[in-house]
């Protein structure tokens, strides 16, 4: 093996990789946040709503969790234009990832709804809380705390595995940027070594941030290492 590593060309274009990493981070955050809203809504429907509504949510969750994310995004990007719906590649990626995350987060948040303690809710009622106040002060904090570790793990999944699918429809997130740059100068090995390191750093920063957020907001004792 007499391969000679040449990282110089990677460093020359490093700012483009950083831009890709920033886009990856934004996509991860927005897809997760949107997915969390969908998940919260669907989990509430599954817990409180009548059967037909629960069935619709079940169908959504089953459909999304049993098909590859890539297929879902291809469906939006290559499929929908056939019927006249044309969105940019970034929009397709973000919408696809959000819908995908929403289904998984429905399952995660549902566990939180089930574990919400009826006793605390009754205590809130007798103190005069309205339904909305019960949700805000008792149910949501309870869910957030109960399922926080699972939520944090899933954010990492969206951030790394979800967003990198974008490379296949030409979104210039971190993986996409790496493919673009290395196709110009054929330094695949160097680029992907550096990019792998950047993903690790990105998830490491996200993990620390999430652990601190969890400790601050919900007193979740998370171990970073």
């Amino acid at each position, binding site marked *: 093996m007499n391969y000679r590593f040449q990282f110089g060309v990677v460093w020359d274009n490093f700012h483009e990789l950083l831009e890709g990493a920033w886009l990856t981070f934004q996509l991860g955050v927005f897809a997760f946040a949107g997915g969390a809203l969908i998940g919260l809504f669907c989990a509430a429907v599954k817990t409180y709503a009548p059967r037909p509504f629960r069935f619709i949510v079940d169908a959504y969750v089953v459909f999304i969790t049993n098909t590859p994310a890539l297929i879902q995004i291809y469906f939006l990007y290559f499929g929908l234009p056939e019927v006249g719906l044309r969105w940019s590649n970034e929009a397709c990626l973000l919408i696809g990832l959000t819908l995908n995350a929403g289904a998984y987060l429905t399952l995660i948040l549902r566990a939180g709804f089930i574990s919400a303690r009826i006793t605390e809710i*009754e205590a809130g009622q*007798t103190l005069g809380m309205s339904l909305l106040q019960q949700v805000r002060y008792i149910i949501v904090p309870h869910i957030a*705390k109960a399922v926080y570790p699972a939520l944090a793990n899933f954010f990492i999944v969206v951030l790394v595995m979800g967003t990198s699918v974008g490379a296949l429809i030409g979104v210039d997130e971190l993986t996409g940027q790496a493919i673009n740059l290395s196709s110009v100068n054929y330094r695949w090995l160097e680029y992907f070594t550096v990019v792998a390191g950047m993903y690790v750093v990105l998830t490491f920063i996200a993990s620390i941030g999430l652990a601190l957020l969890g400790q601050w907001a919900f007193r979740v004792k998370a171990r970073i290492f």
Partner: protein
Amino acid sequence: MAHLAVSDVRAKYGSLEVLKGISFSIEKGEIAALVGPSGSGKSTVLRALMGLTPITEGSVEIASERMNYSSAKEVRAARDRMAIVFQAYNLFQNMTVMQNLTLAPLKIKKWPKAEVEAEARRLLGLVGLSDKADAYSDQLSGGQQQRVALARGLALKPQILLLDEVTSALDPELVGEVLDAIGKLAAEGMTMVIVSHEMGFVREVADKVVFMDAGQIVESGAPAEIFDAPKTDRARDFFSKVLRH
């Protein structure tokens, strides 16, 4: 004029009638104790007063004002006038002791912050927990949690305090500290309805004892009458078992 007048209250769980016409009344500053075997409906009386178990018939009057339990909105009038403390404390686990006490006065009543916090500190002092304001419930013993629940109930300045077997979930060693706190409230003139199995304590603080069985009041009267000279066989049988200990 009775401060709290409960007249012929009936309640059902599904098709099972659990309260079959309950009537009793207490004056301001008095303490009524509901006693009787498990499943007799004692706790259900308190839950019905708070609007947690629907009342199918009968009426509840507080200071001559009839309470309306017909909707979640109407039931607030009853919840404004009474507070309940549960057997299992039911503290908000994601909040500190101070937040547990101040949440309802601040967010629901919109009372001024400085006043609410001063009152919360006074109440924590009353139940002997001044140093635990910033603790979370999982950092407290059962007896401490129950005293916090007591203070939380008082933070909304209720006219009547309902205590639902507040010492039943506690280690024997911790029962005393909770009973001490309730004794202090009694001395302050708080009107209370308590469900309890602590017969010695009931005899000491209650003005009136109501003995219930199978969703009905079997007999009621002053503690000495009920405990020492019960008129009915059912009451005699029950007290001969519980008072022997």
